[in-house]
């Protein structure tokens, strides 16, 4: 619990330092004028992936013990669309809304309020949604399983895509300014 709180505080601090507590900055992602969200999130993915891979390879981390959330194709597709629509309308996602609220921004507090209201409504209306919620179950999927390639190939591929995209994002931002 203490570790989780420490990681949560560190995550929030880094999000704030990256400027992601500001809805205008996040909205820039959707207008393709500011790609900070993409760069920060993809950096986090690459860092976590390389860390998990190499710590496991060196025997520090048991990758088999890391929980991989299960995939439910249709409900997660619907949830992703709803999440995206909410992100565009609010200019904040759940994590960044907490950061925005913690730094005293009113829009962040309102998004958090809306988020918890949504959680409450979903909980109350869960019974009729349960069948859909558990539909199209695919089990715990990982890219090495899906693509039928060794783990190292996926790691290399994601790093290559990330570095190429970072370079392209920098060029795009310079042109947009």
């Amino acid at each position, binding site marked *: 619990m203490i570790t989780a709180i420490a990681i949560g505080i560190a995550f929030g601090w880094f999000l704030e330092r990256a400027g992601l507590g500001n809805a205008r900055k996040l909205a820039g992602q959707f207008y393709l004028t500011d790609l900070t969200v993409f760069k920060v999130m993809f950096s986090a993915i690459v860092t976590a992936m390389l860390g998990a891979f190499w710590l496991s390879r060196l025997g520090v981390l048991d990758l088999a013990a890391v929980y991989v959330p299960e995939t439910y194709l249709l409900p997660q597709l619907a949830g992703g669309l709803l999440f995206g629509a909410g992100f565009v309308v609010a200019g904040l996602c759940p994590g960044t809304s907490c950061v925005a609220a913690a730094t005293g921004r009113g829009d962040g507090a309102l998004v958090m309020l809306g988020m918890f209201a949504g959680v409450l409504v979903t909980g109350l209306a869960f019974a009729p949604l349960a069948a859909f919620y558990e539909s199209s179950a695919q089990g715990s999927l990982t890219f090495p399983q899906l693509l039928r390639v060794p783990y190292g190939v996926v790691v290399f591929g994601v*790093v290559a895509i990330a570095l190429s995209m970072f370079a392209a994002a920098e060029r795009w931002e310079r042109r947009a300014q």
Partner: protein
Amino acid sequence: MRRALAAIAATGGVLALLAGSPYPLDVQRLAKAVAREDDHVTAVELAAWIRGRKPGLRIIDLRTPAEFKDYHLPRAENVAIDALTSTPFRSDETIVLVSGAGGHAAQGWVFLQALGHRNVFFLRGGQDEWLEAMKQQPEIGRYFGGVRRRDGC
């Protein structure tokens, strides 16, 4: 700074290609070995290895001491299955695991693979199939005595 981080990420990504599986037990490799039937030997194949005095061959019998005393394969050593993972093996040895019907030997194969031993096999069908093969193939059976071997063979 950004170039240095990009270089670290690129190095980690390229080396990942060569690093092998991050899982201590690469189940995909094991599954392929099972599909190729590289995980076991038949009684006839093992008999040929014993007759040919295959260098570094170690036959590990995982049955109880009483069962081992009653009958065991030539050159076999008796090791309890819960002592298997602490039994020292050299990397140049070929290990063949034997149990009554092959179940414990197949499980032992997974244990030794998890410990990094690659030259490990189990006797398919275990001791039962061995005895059946000796009956079915008299020329091999005669080489190994033609009847059940007891004590000190």
